[in-house]
């Protein structure tokens, strides 16, 4: 039996109280990430013709600093698109996304991407060794980086540093990708289905790692997943997205114990088909 991942223990209130802001009502308080009326229409190929499809419709929510937000929903609900807009791999058609109170479209896009790290479903390797991969971000800016330290953070042995990245197992590669994102010293980490390509053991290792990084470094995490046990294991907050619309938003415990909406309840029972 594979042990279940350790659940993250804190609640959102703890984070706010531990942080430098007295409460969410403090005027100086700005959430790590805030979406205001975000919509996205994009051309999609249907059969042999291109159709404008609204993939995100008027979504607003905020992610307080230090939280782990699980962005859940059936596949095709727009979760990944929403995540990709947070570091501007795509842009919203309307609405605004802010990082600690600043509109991200006003930031230098490369600096934004340094501050908002991203890890993808399948580990995307950069040609070269593990060290080449991990130090890629800092090297771009001509900064020094100790790749060994970054491997320590994700509990990978330092003797892997000079191995080609392709020689690692998929689970190790995914942890290397997290180390690579951490080398940029991000303030927010975006995870797009980080466990979906992994077996249960490797997935649990990654989930434990996400919890630990959040606990020890105060890293804000937004994780897209369609696997509810993984969302439950790490999420402190949940946003449920169905057909590009926000259905629920709230504390993870409350959502998983008793969803506020009928759609939420049906989703948790696995009644929502994938293409809905």
């Amino acid at each position, binding site marked *: 039996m594979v042990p279940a991942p350790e659940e993250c223990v804190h609640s959102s209130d703890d984070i706010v109280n531990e942080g430098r802001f007295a409460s969410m009502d403090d005027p100086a308080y700005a959430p790590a990430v805030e979406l205001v009326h975000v919509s996205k229409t*994009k*051309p999609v*190929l249907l059969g*042999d*013709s*291109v159709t404008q499809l609204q993939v995100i419709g008027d979504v607003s929510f905020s992610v307080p600093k230090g939280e782990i937000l699980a962005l859940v929903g059936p596949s095709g609900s727009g979760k990944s698109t929403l995540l990709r807009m947070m*570091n*501007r*791999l*795509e*842009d919203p058609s309307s609405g605004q996304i802010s990082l600690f109170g600043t509109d991200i479209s006003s930031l230098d*896009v*490369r*600096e934004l*991407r*340094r501050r908002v*790290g*991203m890890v*993808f479903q*399948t580990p*995307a*390797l*950069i*040609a070269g060794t593990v060290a080449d991969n991990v130090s*890629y*971000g800092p090297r*771009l*800016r001509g900064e020094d980086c100790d790749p060994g330290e970054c491997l320590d953070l994700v509990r990978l042995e330092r003797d892997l540093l000079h191995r080609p990245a392709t020689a690692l197992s998929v689970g190790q590669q995914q942890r290397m*990708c997290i180390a*690579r*994102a951490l080398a*940029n010293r991000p303030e927010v980490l975006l995870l797009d289905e980080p466990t979906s390509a992994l077996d249960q053991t490797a997935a649990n290792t990654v989930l434990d790692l996400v919890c630990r990084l959040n606990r020890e470094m105060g890293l804000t995490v937004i994780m897209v997943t369609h696997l509810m046990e993984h969302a439950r294991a790490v999420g402190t907050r949940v946003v449920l997205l169905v057909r590009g619309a926000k259905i629920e938003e709230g504390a993870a415990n409350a959502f998983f114990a008793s969803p506020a909406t009928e759609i939420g309840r049906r989703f948790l029972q696995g009644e929502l088909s994938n293409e809905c």
Partner: protein
Amino acid sequence: MNASAYIHISLIDLLIALLFVGVTALISYWQHLGLERDIAIGTVRTFVQLLTVGFVLQRLFDASRWYWVVLALAIMTTVAGYNAVKRQAGAKQGLFAMTTASIATGGAITLILVIGVVLRVLPWYQPQYVIPIAGMVIGNSMNGAALVVNRFHSELTLRRSEIEASLALGAPAREAAAGALRESLRAAMMPTVNSMMTVGLVQLPGMMTGQIISGASPLDAVRYQVVVMLMIAAATAVTAMTAAFGALRVFFTPAQQLSPRLELGRHWDAYVGRRQS
């Protein structure tokens, strides 16, 4: 190189050459290749196109005016730019201007060097030199530009996840696509480099053959051919480089994102066209 040193082809001789077409058509008929119609059209086109070009060139040579020569070069470049894009499998929007500009850049730099510095043609616009040399330069530049655009498109599709991972780490498009750019440039340069390896061993280049038939000494023709080979290599390299940087601007947005045209492929043209109308 006096004009009487080679045998002229009369119109009667041209008609006799039609016998070759007869042989080709016969083989097609006999082996059920179904190519008879295409052979007929191809023959007519060969006659019409080449006779027209011959007529135009004759007028151009007789007039020997710099502005007619420049106009001819502009037309050749534009047609080459269009042809380079025509071979692109995905969307074509925004590429035509880019390939034409690349071919013009690579072509102009090389042509100025060859006409002005190596051959020192006086006056510089003598059509006898400028037109055939420009034809070779522009033709090879066209192939270079087409190869860059095609290869870059397929490399981006292939390496998409790696490129987006780099972008997400804060890499500029130029850095994220460095591998794709390198492969595209290699693809564009390989044919030229290969032909430099085998020239003269497998077949004699067309221009050299022509010069020899016109009565030039093989030693003289060979010198021309050396210049031509090197000039083609330079033109291809400059054009490919320019086209690669142009392609970077076409396939990435200013916000260092991969353009949605990659996902939509050839449907992108229709989509953009509809949005603009």
